[in-house]
């Protein structure tokens, strides 16, 4: 009897979720059909959205890498990862500005870009490692909410530290001339910097994937994610592997940060917050702990965000749909959590419960 009532109540909640989810899906389909039928957007519009979405999505994917790897190894959301993402490009801005004012950026663009990337990745890595050492390491065996709250605190501390250090205004990233301009393929155009962002992110992700899959260190990291005690018995230094994970996460976040700054041409102390949540969403979308999943999730989220407002909402007659793109991204997260809580590619966690 007791079990039966319990089952009934579960179904009510489940039923509600399915109805809500179904209604949202229906709205999406209806909106898309209406938009496509209205013919307001030409194919080259969609191509623009596609390229922009791919570029944005590959940045999300790079950030999501840090979330998903740290989650895999520590079973915690590194909430402060968004600040790891912000700190690097914000610091590298000063290098970029110095290059720009001295003319070095125009005379040696590739060299200066390399320097900007190096500075950004180094600073982001430094932040990530410090974070692990100061805030997370002492709390490894603490109750589950404690590290998460620490991470939230660290996130705000870092945000406002950078605000105090560098000021609260927006800083305009200098323009790199070789990245300006576009390629035309008939009606379709690709902005050069978008192409660079996509290619760079793809290369970095491929390198990272190969590192984790093919090298000894990568193997060790995967082993620690699988079972800490067993891998420490096999002679793997847990602490070192955790630090390595944070280093990898920091480097990819630093690189993603510069790509983001090149794309949106500005940096700000609060710039990490929204991309950070999005990247976490991407990691969950793909299945947390799953590296290819994070890549897929990031790109999927980027595409939904760039196409969603026009595709889903325009047809429903909603004014200024572009304002709602973040709402679409978060709705996506909720939908995935309702229908497929393990993400698109499935979680890769040995122990499901942290």
């Amino acid at each position, binding site marked *: 009897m007791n079990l039966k009532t319990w089952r009934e109540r579960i179904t009510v909640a489940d039923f509600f979720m399915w109805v809500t989810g179904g209604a949202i899906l229906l709205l999406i389909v209806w909106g898309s059909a209406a938009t496509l039928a209205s013919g307001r957007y030409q194919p080259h519009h969609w191509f623009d959205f596609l390229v922009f979405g791919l570029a944005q999505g590959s940045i999300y994917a790079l950030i999501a890498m840090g979330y998903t790897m740290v989650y895999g190894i520590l079973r915690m959301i590194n909430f402060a990862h968004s600040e790891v993402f912000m700190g690097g490009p914000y610091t590298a801005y000063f290098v970029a500005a110095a290059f720009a004012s001295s003319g070095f950026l125009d005379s040696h663009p590739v060299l200066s870009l390399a320097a900007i990337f190096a500075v950004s990745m180094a600073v982001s890595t430094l932040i990530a490692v410090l974070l692990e050492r100061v805030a997370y390491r002492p709390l490894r065996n603490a109750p589950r909410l404690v590290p998460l709250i620490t991470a939230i605190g660290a996130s705000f501390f870092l945000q406002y530290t950078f605000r105090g*250090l560098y000021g609260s205004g927006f800083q305009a990233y200098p323009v790199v001339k070789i990245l300006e301009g576009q390629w035309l393929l008939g009606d379709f155009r690709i902005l050069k910097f978008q192409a660079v962002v996509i290619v760079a992110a793809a290369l970095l992700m491929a390198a990272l994937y190969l590192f984790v899959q093919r090298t000894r260190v990568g193997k060790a990291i995967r082993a620690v994610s699988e079972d800490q005690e067993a891998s420490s018995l096999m002679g793997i230094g847990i602490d070192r592997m955790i630090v390595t994970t944070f280093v990898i996460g920091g480097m990819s976040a630093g690189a993603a940060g510069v790509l983001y700054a090149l794309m949106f041409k500005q940096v700000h102390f609060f710039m990490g917050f929204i991309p950070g949540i999005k990247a976490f969403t991407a990691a969950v979308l793909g299945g947390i702990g799953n590296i290819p999943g994070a890549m897929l999730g990031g790109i999927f989220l980027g595409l939904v965000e760039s196409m969603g407002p026009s595709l889903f909402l325009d047809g429903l007659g909603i004014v200024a749909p572009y304002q709602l793109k973040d709402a679409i991204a978060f709705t996506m997260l909720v939908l995935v959590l309702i229908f497929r809580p393990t993400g698109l590619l499935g979680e890769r966690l040995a122990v499901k419960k942290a």
Partner: protein
Amino acid sequence: MQTGPGLWRNGIKIGFIAGGVAVLISLIGMVEAFSQRFIIAEGITLGQTLLLAVGLFASHQAARRTPGPGAFGRLLNAVAAGLTAAAVLGIFIFLGSHLNLRKVFINASPILYKLLAFDRELGTGILLLLGTGAAGGILAGLFFLASPPLRGSLGAACGSLVGMGVLQDLLAPTFALWGPLAVINDWIYEVNGLSFGGAVFLLVLIGSATQLWRKEGPAIRNAFGRISPAKRKTLGLAGWLLVALLLLALPQILGLFLSEVLTIVGLYVLLGLGLNIVVGYAGLLDLGYVAVFAIGSYTIALLTSPELGFFNLSFWAALPFAILFGVLFGVLLGIPVLKMRGDYLAIATLGFGEIIRILVLSDFLRPWLGGAQGVGKIPKIAIGSLEFGTPQEIYYIILAGCLGVAYISWRLRDSRLGRAWMALREDEDVAQAMGINLVSTKLLAFATGAGFSALSGAIFATKLGSVYPHSFNVMISINILCVIIVGGMGSIPGVILGAVALVGLPELLREFAEYRLLVYGAVLVAMMLLRPEGLWPEAMRRRELHDKEPGGAEAEPASGPDRTG
């Protein structure tokens, strides 16, 4: 006992860290911002106190971590830490005066270097700094070596001295209002900061008072224990009556500005008590809590504001709807996250909070919700012809709300539902195995928390007279989370203490405003590392977090992180 460099190494290492922290504090502008406020008139500023506190803490840690029992070694290490920290800061001043750091660090101004060098020439300033570092090291080392009673008294005296200095703007006007007490102002305060004589007087007074209490305290407590139960009950009742009278008279005592601060604190107490149910009791980390606060505010705005002209109800007619909608949304937002684990839940609720804010802000809902301009002309609360307009009047509404909500929280805590929440917090699977219905228990937690939050939002809307989407960003959720974590999760007095400390104090210290979230973040991390149970913990949670230590609650807070080592 170790000899040679081994003995020094710890001190120097800690000194380097402290020096780095001191440079960071200077670079983010805190020293300069806090140098306007004098603790001791024309003597020591709050900025200097901050730096000194970093140095003293480092020296104290160095003394504590010295290997071997030797007192001299400890003292030496403390001095080494103090000197190293001062040297790092000195190098920073030297570098800063010769290189232009300002292109990168906006706060690295000549004024800062001047402040750090005690307004002297560079060389003299750095020498003075080193001297202060060494002296601080000796003081901290001696402090560590002193007997515990003396240490307690000294700590309390110095702490209250800083407190009295910082809170001058609060205390001096309050004393001035009360004839006989006004004399105190002449004794201890100057225009800006404590007078030197006043500071010495306070040090001696508080120091000897704590010493006296240490000696006589047990006797007094014994005497209280010997009073008959009936009499003790009367005394307790009288105490409560006194508290009630004080609460009622507070706005009249404190005046307009401080009453305004009190109302803000009160709203946070309301919000905190609501989140306390969700996070503190049930252990569901909700970062989208501000969404329901917004829903409460906007419901009141929609139903009462003549600017929109939909309904034009009075506050009291609209309030049940506000709470109802709040609860409804709390449940609706709760259903999708029912099956999620702690950290998923946090991000999903954060997403909900953002969705609500984005929707309210959008042009799409503008005809109904006012878009970025918000909704204005929300009428004041009125009972008959009595209107609650000024902060001093609204205080009573908020006080009533807080008392009611605190009472409900208190009664819920020990109820069947409250115990189910706590079981859920400790272990979901075990709770379910014990026959607790996870769905209804979780949803009831979300609903109750949402109800409190909507009430707070309703009062907030009429207090301001208008609502804007910008008032409902994620920072509010984080602030409330800080309040309950600093106070102690699950503890009702803790929430009140947390709100006073984290919301009240920053309102009083204007220069603090810019660093508020920075300090919140640091406080969150420090609390989790050193004292995860909060300042005024609930008994059960304290036991849970310290269950591995033999001393239980009595264990020294600093030993918290070591146990995981």
